[in-house]
């Protein structure tokens, strides 16, 4: 009886399950393998990107300097009027004295172009600091010209034909002479970190762009954080549920997907043309980026508010708190880590944005470090854009260097976001 039943009975479920296990395990393995492959691919691309940027850009943090012996001739530099002295004449004389056999205007011009035009300013600064030097002969390290810099860093091959080279044979001879006498060396490039933009790569720095970025982000943060959080609180906690509010919500979500250059056009039309705000000012840049980051902040703040357990708000209402008290004492503090993370990510996005700022004129060539939010300025990504467009070989290096600085700031901001989230995180 029992046997018969076993024969006719359908297969037991566990047998069916066991029979299928192999197939399941295999597809599981396949899926994991695919995942690993894609991660490897992503890491590979990232490494390639970073590798190429770093390998091109690390040179920007060093600058070639040459040592000149100059005579601070009182005839060329008037001790009474240090600002008017013929400092470049002194430098040129120093060069001529090193290479007395150089003759002819063209060759002399080539010789003079070994050192940066900024050498004269550095000499002037030194003399103003120590006026007692006038009349003496001194040795001074001055920045080399960008072509010399590039050559000395080994980016120009001496074996190719002279007419294909930016550095000519006679210049190579002079540089070799500097090398023999230990009068040329690479130093840490402080100019890159504390100067504004310049037509000469060896005098160009990112500080102007960093300050511009700082002011722009400051304006963006001060405007978009309170406005964004307040909108999120209103929409999430107070707004009546009706068609109009639905419409607003849909629009906010859509705004997050609008290409950023549109915001730039809007800024140009409204802030500059209609309200007459100054072009190229970080204030206007901040306004435009505020428009761009608001949807991000509103959406992430709403998500953060939504994730606070409703029981907390009920508890507060239950002891007689008004809705505002319940939100500001309990819900908002619990939502803060999410809100801050969203805000910092929005800020990071704003920091990396260039297209809308091109529209409002922040793409201008600006040498001075901006002193306020209404001064003309540029920002890091636009500076990168400008340098990438320049023909000089030395700007290539600086472009990558600036990208490294920008990436550094972005990593820093993301780290701050992570730390804040960890700090504020609470269990319930």
């Amino acid at each position: 009886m029992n046997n018969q039943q076993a024969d006719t009975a359908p297969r037991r479920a566990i047998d069916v399950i066991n029979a299928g296990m192999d197939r399941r395990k295999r597809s599981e393995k396949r899926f994991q393998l695919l995942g690993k492959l894609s991660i490897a691919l992503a890491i590979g691309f990232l490494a390639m990107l970073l590798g190429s940027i770093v390998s091109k850009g690390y040179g920007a943090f060093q600058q070639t300097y040459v040592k000149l012996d100059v005579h601070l001739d009182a005839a060329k530099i008037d001790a009474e009027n240090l600002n008017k002295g013929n400092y470049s004449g002194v430098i040129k004389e120093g060069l001529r004295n090193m290479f007395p056999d150089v003759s002819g205007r063209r060759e002399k011009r080539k010789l003079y172009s070994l050192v940066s035009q900024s050498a004269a300013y550095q000499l002037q600064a030194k003399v103003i600091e120590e006026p007692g030097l006038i009349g003496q002969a001194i040795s001074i390290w001055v920045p080399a010209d960008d072509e010399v810099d590039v050559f000395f860093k080994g980016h120009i091959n001496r074996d190719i034909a002279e007419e294909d080279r930016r550095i000519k044979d006679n210049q190579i001879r002079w540089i070799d002479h500097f090398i023999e006498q230990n009068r040329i060396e690479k130093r840490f490039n402080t100019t890159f970190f504390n100067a504004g933009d310049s037509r000469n790569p060896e005098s160009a720095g990112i500080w102007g762009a960093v300050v511009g970025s700082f002011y722009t982000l400051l304006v963006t943060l001060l405007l978009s954080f309170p406005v964004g959080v307040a909108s999120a609180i209103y929409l999430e906690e107070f707004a009546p549920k009706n068609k109009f509010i639905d419409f607003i919500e849909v629009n906010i979500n859509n705004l997050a997907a609008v290409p950023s250059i549109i915001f730039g056009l809007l800024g140009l039309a409204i802030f500059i043309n209609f309200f007459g705000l100054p072009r190229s000012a970080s204030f206007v840049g901040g306004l435009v980026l505020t428009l761009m980051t608001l949807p991000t902040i509103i959406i992430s703040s709403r998500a953060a508010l939504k994730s606070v357990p409703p029981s907390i708000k009920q508890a507060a209402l239950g002891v007689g708190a008004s809705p505002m008290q319940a939100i500001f004492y309990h819900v908002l503090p619990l939502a803060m880590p999410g809100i801050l993370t969203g805000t910092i990510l929005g800020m990071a996005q704003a920091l990396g944005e260039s297209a809308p700022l091109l529209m409002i004129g922040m793409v201008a060539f600006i040498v001075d470090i901006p002193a306020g939010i209404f001064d003309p300025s540029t920002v890091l990504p636009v500076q990168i854009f400008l340098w990438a467009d320049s023909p000089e070989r030395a700007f290539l290096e600086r472009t990558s260097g600036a990208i490294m600085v920008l990436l550094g700031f972005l990593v820093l901001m993301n780290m701050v976001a992570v730390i804040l989230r960890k700090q504020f995180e609470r269990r319930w």
Partner: protein
Amino acid sequence: MNVEQETGQKEMELNPAQTKEAMDLQSKTPKVDRENRETVGDVRVDDPRMRCTDINVHYGDKHAIKGLNLDVGKKEILSMIGPSGCGKSTFLRCLNRMNDTIDSCRVTGTIEMDGVDINGKSIDVVPLRASVGMVFQKPNPFPKSIRENILFGPRIHGLATDKDDLEEIVVNSLKKAGLWDEVKDRLDQPGTGLSGGQQQRLCIARTIAVEPEIILMDEPCSALDPISTAAIEELMLELSESYSICIVTHSMQQAARVSNRTAYFHLGDLIEVGTTDQVFNAPLHQLTEDYITGRFG
């Protein structure tokens, strides 16, 4: 360990005894028919704290409470029982207007507290909720220190500003909630770090810190172990000496143990109200009997 056994035993005893008695009674007295949804029993008491008249609650199209009349007496424990989804919580939320926070919810009828309609236009929910406190099903302490949990209510209502007065409120509330001895050394640690039962007593302490006149409890013990349940039941009996308590419970044993009066709800109707003894031992309505004898629910 001891307490756990005791509580367990108590529950074991109560059920069969009641069931048997109810069975006996069933054969003697005729019950109100199952199809009749008129409330049977005395919905009114002399000198009520709260008087609900003709309450209807809708969630959108759903009619969740249908024409309910019920009084809450002074210093009594009124328990509400019934199958889930019958509207017990909904009714409880009417009493401190927590239903206002639900968008789709509409409440009609009058609820008088000491003679004043709390649904009236001139009534502000803030003082109302201060005088009608609520304890929720799931313990929901604020993720702050135990002290801050207690003090939030008194602070926002301005009950005390002096540091000593505030400290006194903390001590008194925790003592009344029977939690003082367990937490007196760690008032500055987070309330969320307590055990479930302690958290619920903290929530009760938080509620009584604003000196309410009525306390609403929505299944306060459903997430708790028997020991914590026993502690909270004892607490309710103590509190009922000064407050009115309305408790929703899914445990008939609990209703039988703590309450003076019991109301039985069924699909949005209030079916039967009476003293707890009467409802459990001699229900007048067939549906009530079905429920307490375990034939329904």
